[in-house]
């Protein structure tokens, strides 16, 4: 459920009001309780005082009739349920009422005193200056029912509860309206401004109506939109520049690719002729040449052959993008089988190596010819870079990476690659071994990297020098 800021503020303040209201209510109830109790005591003591005054003479005269009148009068008073008047010798002169009450009783006692002159003080009596002494002549005990007090306390509680409830309700309404007016409304205007800016209207200005924090925020917002406007203008200029550079770059790339393709394609024919005619020349004039001349001719033929291979490889590299075909579902397992039987049959046999496939390799989405090229390059590298003491063993396996990609591993038991070169080897013309020991152009792995990149995958190698290497690459899965 979405709760608005004004609702939150209202809830917060209402809770605060509720807590303060409860505390205030508790305080007021206690105050009222003590005030009621004080008033109750005051009323009781007032009654007792007046009874003490009235019963002073009846007690002096042991007048039970008068005391009975006084006692009965007190019993007619509200709350008084029992009255007892005793003389100084604790003899009961009047006793009436009940001392049982459900709610409870409160007892009040008052000693009745009278003033007398000292005996034999007749002189002072005549002069009217004698010292009066107080003498206890009896006791009045009243029992008050607490029923009315409790009822009054209940009334007070109800009133206080009603006042607190009303104040909470009023504060709720007031805070809600104020929060909407002073907080939510300005914030909504800010939100509207944000939306307009996000829609591209950078000319929109949030109205600033006050001088509070929200107004400061609105000012900052307006300043930000102005800055955005400036930045957008700069971006547009930069975008134009970038587009222009991109166009130039694409044209340059295209020109370069055309150049590579044309160069390699056009160079292939003369080199092939050099190589073919070099071979013819070598076989026709072999007997007429001395040792040095024959060696020079062999260098020339060998150079032309290497040139031819390099051109072929460059052509292959450039075809990765120029002859690219749409991706389709292919079976890596079948490709590897074909390679073992056809293209790699001779190298495998020559090296006396083995190529194994672990389990069923998953299906991938790829350009079939480029996938063919990729696997051929990696397997032939495994067969080629091998020490003379060992027979090459290539193991191919696959793994579903659960992110829609398939990872293929080509593990060999070859010479391995030093750790520091594991990234460099995918660069064009990068060779780690002497070309006399292992023939090659240094383009094969660059082609692999280019193919994998074109398919949106990654390629890498994990290797320990002397203990073989495991090349891996990822391609899109079929699901």
């Amino acid at each position: 459920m979405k709760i608005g800021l004004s609702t939150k503020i209202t809830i917060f303040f209402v809770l605060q009001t509720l807590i303060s209201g409860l505390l205030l209510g508790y305080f007021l109830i206690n105050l009222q309780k003590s005030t009621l109790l004080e008033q109750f005591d005051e009323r009781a003591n007032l009654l007792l005082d007046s009874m003490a005054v009235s019963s002073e003479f009846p007690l002096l005269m042991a007048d039970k009739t008068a005391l009975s009148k006084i006692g009965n009068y007190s019993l007619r008073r509200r709350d008084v349920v029992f009255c007892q008047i005793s003389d100084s010798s604790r003899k009961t002169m009047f006793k009436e009422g009940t001392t049982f009450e459900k709610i409870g009783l409160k007892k009040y006692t008052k000693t009745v005193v009278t003033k007398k002159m000292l005996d034999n003080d007749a002189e002072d009596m005549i002069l009217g200056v004698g010292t009066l002494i107080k003498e206890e002549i009896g006791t009045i005990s009243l029992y008050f029912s607490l029923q009315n007090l409790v009822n009054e306390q209940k009334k007070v509680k109800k009133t206080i509860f009603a006042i607190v409830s009303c104040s909470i309700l009023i504060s709720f309404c007031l805070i809600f309206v104020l929060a909407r007016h002073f907080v939510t409304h300005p914030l909504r205007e800010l939100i509207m401004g944000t939306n307009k800016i996000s829609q591209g209207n950078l000319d929109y200005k949030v109205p600033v109506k006050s001088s509070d924090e929200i107004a400061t925020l609105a000012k900052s917002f307006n300043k930000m939109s102005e800055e955005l406007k400036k930045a957008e203008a700069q971006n547009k200029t930069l975008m134009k520049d970038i587009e222009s550079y991109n166009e130039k770059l694409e044209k340059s790339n295209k020109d370069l690719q055309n150049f590579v393709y044309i160069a390699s394609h056009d160079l292939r024919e003369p080199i092939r002729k050099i190589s073919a005619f070099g071979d013819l020349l070598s076989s026709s004039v072999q007997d007429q040449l001395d040792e040095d001349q024959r060696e020079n001719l062999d260098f020339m033929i060998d150079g032309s052959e290497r040139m031819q291979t390099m051109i072929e490889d460059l052509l292959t590299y450039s075809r990765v993008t120029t002859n690219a075909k749409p991706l389709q579902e292919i079976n890596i397992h079948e490709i590897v089988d074909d390679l073992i039987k056809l293209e790699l049959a001779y190298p495998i046999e020559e090296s006396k190596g083995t190529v194994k496939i672990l389990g069923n390799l998953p299906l991938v989405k790829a350009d079939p010819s480029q996938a063919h090229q990729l696997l051929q390059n990696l397997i032939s590298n495994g067969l080629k870079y091998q020490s003379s003491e060992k027979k090459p063993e290539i193991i191919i396996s696959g793994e579903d990476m659960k992110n829609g990609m398939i990872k293929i591993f080509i593990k060999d038991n070859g010479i391995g690659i030093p750790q520091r070169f594991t990234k460099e080897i995918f660069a064009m013309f990068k060779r780690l071994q002497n070309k006399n020991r292992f023939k090659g152009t240094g383009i094969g792995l660059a082609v692999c990297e280019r193919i994998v990149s074109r398919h949106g995958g990654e390629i890498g190698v994990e290797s320990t020098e002397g203990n073989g290497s495991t090349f891996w690459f990822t391609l899109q899965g079929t699901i």
Partner: protein
Amino acid sequence: MSRFFTYLFIGFTFFWGLLCFGDDQARIIIIKSKPITPYNLTVSSFKKSFSKKYNSLKIEEILCSKSVQSTQKKLQEINSKFHTDFIFCVGTPAIKVSEIINDSIPRLAALIFSPEKKNYNFPCISINPSAKQKLAKLLQLFPKKRNIGFIYSDNSSADMTNFLTACEQYNLNPVFEKVSNPKTFSEKFEKIIGRCDCYIMFPDSRIYFPKTVEFLLRTALDKQKCTVGLSSVYTRAGTLLSFECDFEDIGKQSADLAFNMLENNFSSGKKTISPRKLTYSLNLIVADRIGVSFSKKIIKNAKYVVEK
């Protein structure tokens, strides 16, 4: 030469005679029980009267404090320097203080209640007028009132006896009740008030205290009966009238007595002297309530009047 001695003798004798016959010097100590108006009036009146009798009068005045011993000590100190000729005690506490001084110094006491009951061996002027005085004055004021009511206790039985004697003398009909227990006062009072024309109070603290006096006054007012109080204090409180001595006159009376005692070696034996003059106070509000009217002369002669 013999002539010279003769003149010298005559001259000496003449001056000696002058000294002896003109010895109108007196040193008096006045002991006052309380600093209250009646005592003050008596003392000032005494001093004024006494000073007229002596050219050279030295008076030392002592006010009794709460502690009798400390006042006695003070009295002794003063007497040792002053060598007093006479001691005048005002009020009973003053007599008690004076007991520290040797009996050989003559003394007089004034404003003492019923001195005849006490064993004083010097003259005392009573504070309360005699029953005879009171009844005589009452008859002057109310000639028709014949039934006089009294309530007495053991404390005031002597007063009762005096009044009965006086009633007999003036042919008045006493209506009286004895109160043994103060609790029966209201009953006894209600019993006699209907039968008497006028009720006279005794200075008896056993019977009369604020509540009983209040009851007495209220009942008498309800029954429209005359009440006679003990002093003007009671008249102010609500009795119709009160008889009391004239405090200034007691001062003069005391001065005369003292002079006689000093000049004529008046016997310092036991003697109770009644006040010479009787005054009365009236409450015209009460009179109005109970339907009593006084002549202008009576009102004029009253020492104190509570006006309507």
